[in-house]
């Protein structure tokens, strides 16, 4: 009775319906101006201390990327397509470039494939460090904000050397990468990655073995294996629930097949496991970078020449990669034009958003930030 829509208000626009108020249930708007929400609003109904209903309200950064892509050709689409996740920009351009290469029938030079892997893994570290910093500040752990924010700059420096920009690299282009790396990059990269890995190990002492963190995140927001599969979650959320699924292993793209790494899987499915998986992923990223630097051809071209305004055939492609948050797919429908006829970006954040009402309902209100941010969710990406 309490949450029924008033019959008179049914004609009002969706999202603006006025609901009858119950004395016991309180409606709480978390966001968009709130330190525990990010760029979105979560409409919570709470009964005492417990959340009884969750309604995520994204769309505050919906910028119409998919519509804009229909007006730009395959090359000029690059800069705005990386904006949804500017701190993971290589990985969001990766499926786009793979898809366009499949459309245009391009063969990427061997050295460019390795450079792509190195850039993508560095960018994954940048993303996860930022995510971890915000996770720390969400839980009131200020040191965990400062440490990853500082260590993140190491990877940003490397990417800066490689691509010439701090966060928005636009490094990947259909047919390779934009430019070759500077001379002594390998040595600098190896040195910084070794130091970075040493720093990562110290996070265990301050954060992951911290009894306060453990008591706040253990056994909160448990996502069972069946639910994780049924809801179609992806990335760290899925792997924390015991499903071994990593696109880099399952559907290897570029040179991931030849590189030595493993995927991290935990069985618990709670917020603690979900917060730990990305941290473990960073060690694997370091391993991949070291391996790729060793196996990379020392010289060669990094980009194939493209005709101006290349046209795709009358077909469609769907390519996906493992980004910092999970499987990121691009569905490109081409109809023989220089522009894509339709470009759908299937983002992991949007897929993990489905799990949020499922996890938050029944939790205590105080656990909301811990559960919410452990979903590895970046609102700008979900809104596109």
């Amino acid at each position, binding site marked *: 009775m309490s949450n029924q829509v008033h019959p008179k208000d049914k004609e009002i626009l*969706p999202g603006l319906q006025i609901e009858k108020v119950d004395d016991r249930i309180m409606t709480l708007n978390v966001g968009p101006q709130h330190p525990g929400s990010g760029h979105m609003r979560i409409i919570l109904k709470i009964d005492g201390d417990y959340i009884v209903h969750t309604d995520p309200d994204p769309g505050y950064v919906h910028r119409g990327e998919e519509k804009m892509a229909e007006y730009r050709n395959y090359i000029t689409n690059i800069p705005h397509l990386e904006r949804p996740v500017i701190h993971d920009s290589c990985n969001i351009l990766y499926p786009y470039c793979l898809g366009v290469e499949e459309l245009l029938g391009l063969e990427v030079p061997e050295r460019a494939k390795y450079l792509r892997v190195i850039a993508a893994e560095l960018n994954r570290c940048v993303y996860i460090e930022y995510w971890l910093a915000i996770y720390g500040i969400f839980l009131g752990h200020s040191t965990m904000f400062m440490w990853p924010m500082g260590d993140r700059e190491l990877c940003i420096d490397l990417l800066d050397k490689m691509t010439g920009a701090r966060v928005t690299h636009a490094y990947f282009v259909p047919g390779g990468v934009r430019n070759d790396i500077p001379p002594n990059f390998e040595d600098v990269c190896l040195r910084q990655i070794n130091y970075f890995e040493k720093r990562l190990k110290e996070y265990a002492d301050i954060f992951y073995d911290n009894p306060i963190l453990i008591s706040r995140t253990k056994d909160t927001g448990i996502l069972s294996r069946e639910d994780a599969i049924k809801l179609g979650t992806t990335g760290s959320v899925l792997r924390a629930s015991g499903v071994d699924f990593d696109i880099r292993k399952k559907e290897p793209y570029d040179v991931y097949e030849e590189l030595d790494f493993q995927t991290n899987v935990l069985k618990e499915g709670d917020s603690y496991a979900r917060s730990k998986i990305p941290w473990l992923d960073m060690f694997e990223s370091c391993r991949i970078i070291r391996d790729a630097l060793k196996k990379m051809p020392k010289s060669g071209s990094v980009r194939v020449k493209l005709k101006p305004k290349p046209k795709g055939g009358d077909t469609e492609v769907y390519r996906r990669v493992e980004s910092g948050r999970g499987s990121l797919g691009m569905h490109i429908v081409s109809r023989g034009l220089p522009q894509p006829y339709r470009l759908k970006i299937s983002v992991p954040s949007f897929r993990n958003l489905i799990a949020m009402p499922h996890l938050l309902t029944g939790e205590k209100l105080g656990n909301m930030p811990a559960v919410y941010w452990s979903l590895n969710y970046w609102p700008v990406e979900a809104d596109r």
Partner: protein
Amino acid sequence: MSSTDSTEIAKTDDSSLASDLDKSLSDSISKKFSNVEIAYVKPDRIRVNVKKEEIIDVASFIRDELNFDHAESVSGVDYPEDKQIEVVYHLGSYTDASLDKKILALATRTPREDNPRPGNDSTKLPSLRDVFPSVSFHERECFEMLGVYFVGHPDNRRLLLPEDWADIPPLRKDFRIKGR
């Protein structure tokens, strides 16, 4: 959705590269449902075009017999010259190790109207939410972006657009960006 349709995605020559598993998957669908059209079989990518009356049956078959258990994305494509809107479900599998690479695109079409009134016109499709719970937010997005109403979806509300959006759904082709 006849094969003479000019906008039909052309069959490519990649089918020779497709593995036996791809072919057996597409054969099992076409054997079970006679009206279903296999648009292409590329390596690891299969596309199946179905009529909207059949889509729930085909989706249930794909889930129960072929072990595809979740939807990766739901993309709506507008074809104004056919007066149709196409909705493509990209289905994947987490549980079956042999299907890790495979993406099955399940496509269906619905008539489109020139003056859309989302939810109150003939642009409707049966919702696959009961078959694949993972499509629930994707279908909400498709509803507001293309005006395809999903019958049976309990939550056909607005998701990303502003609450006061009164224009036609933005991903339709007749919605033009100003100055372009």
